[in-house]
């Protein structure tokens, strides 16, 4: 008579037998006392280990980990907003200034005979960056372009400042939990 091997017992315990195999296994168990003892002992091992008591994690471990998490989170979240704000002010101011300069140069270029691009810039700067030049810029309509560019920069910066404040509030409220 075929004896039940350890491999068969393990296959049975791991629920890897087909219905047909289970049927044959149960039939063979009736006449194989050693296999029956092994099966009972293995079941007892399973029942015991399933009931093992877990070691309790140290007290306040959640608070300790969250404290470290919040430190990491606040450092990671604060920097980008400040950086974005500075970059946005710089970029918009640059775009606005270049745009205003280009328009002013273009306006003045129509009154000159043919000059190289650099000479045009130089002529413009000479004519506008004296005291009377500054007054004329402030009085001119082109000042509106510069003003608009600066206001746009201020709005974008304000947006990042508000987001940064919200982030700070969130971190502050989270630290209380």
């Amino acid at each position, binding site marked *: 008579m075929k004896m039940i091997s350890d491999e068969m017992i393990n296959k049975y315990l791991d629920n890897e037998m087909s219905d047909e195999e289970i049927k044959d296994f149960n039939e063979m168990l009736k006449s194989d006392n050693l296999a029956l003892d092994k099966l009972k002992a293995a079941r007892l091992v399973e029942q015991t280990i399933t009931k093992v008591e877990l070691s309790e994690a*140290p007290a306040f471990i959640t608070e*300790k980990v969250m404290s470290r998490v919040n430190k990491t*989170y606040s450092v990671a979240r604060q920097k980008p907003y400040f950086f974005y704000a500075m970059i946005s002010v710089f970029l918009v101011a640059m775009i606005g200034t270049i745009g205003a300069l280009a328009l002013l140069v273009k306006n003045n270029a129509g009154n000159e005979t043919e000059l190289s691009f650099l000479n045009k810039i130089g002529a413009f700067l000479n004519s506008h960056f004296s005291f009377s030049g500054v007054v004329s810029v402030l009085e001119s309509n082109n000042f509106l372009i510069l003003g608009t560019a600066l206001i746009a920069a201020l709005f974008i910066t304000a947006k990042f400042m508000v987001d940064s404040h919200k982030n700070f509030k969130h971190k502050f409220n989270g630290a209380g939990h």
Partner: protein
Amino acid sequence: MKKLSDIEIIESINRGNSADFSLLIDRYKDKAFSLLKRMLKNEMDAEEALQDSFLKAYNSLKTFRQDSKFSTWFYRIVYNTALTVIASKKRKVEMEMSSIEDHYDLGEYDNQIYAESENVSQYVLKLVDQLPVKGALVLILFYVDSLSLNEISKVMDLSLVNTKVILHRSRNALRDLLIKHNYQEEIL
């Protein structure tokens, strides 16, 4: 109140609610600590490794692809953190060196453990402590944490065949000693 799933908690954290990470900590801290204590044999090391494991998990949450359960992914972090601690303390890296040829013969410990144990549960659990660490871990992850063999193989970076062999050898070693002392008729 409906209990949130691990995935729901992770999605909330990824939306910016970092405080929800405390829910995952509370859910897994005891099991992770038990695993670490078993591997590191030292409560202080286990606590430090536990904090490091959770912090690594938090920092890597955005890379968790949900192609496995969070528990599998997290236990892998815990397991690797323990291996790092073992290696850094320059202990003999028995776990990395060992193979399925680990010593599963518990006969030399049996007499003392049998004499010291008041009941079959105590006896079995003391024997588990004497198993090779990999064998004990596979049993605990399989029966206590209800991980599948496939998941255990991912946690411990073993092949599925290796994992199965370790489970069977560990279970058979304990089973045979229970039969030796006629414990198989006990009912828990």
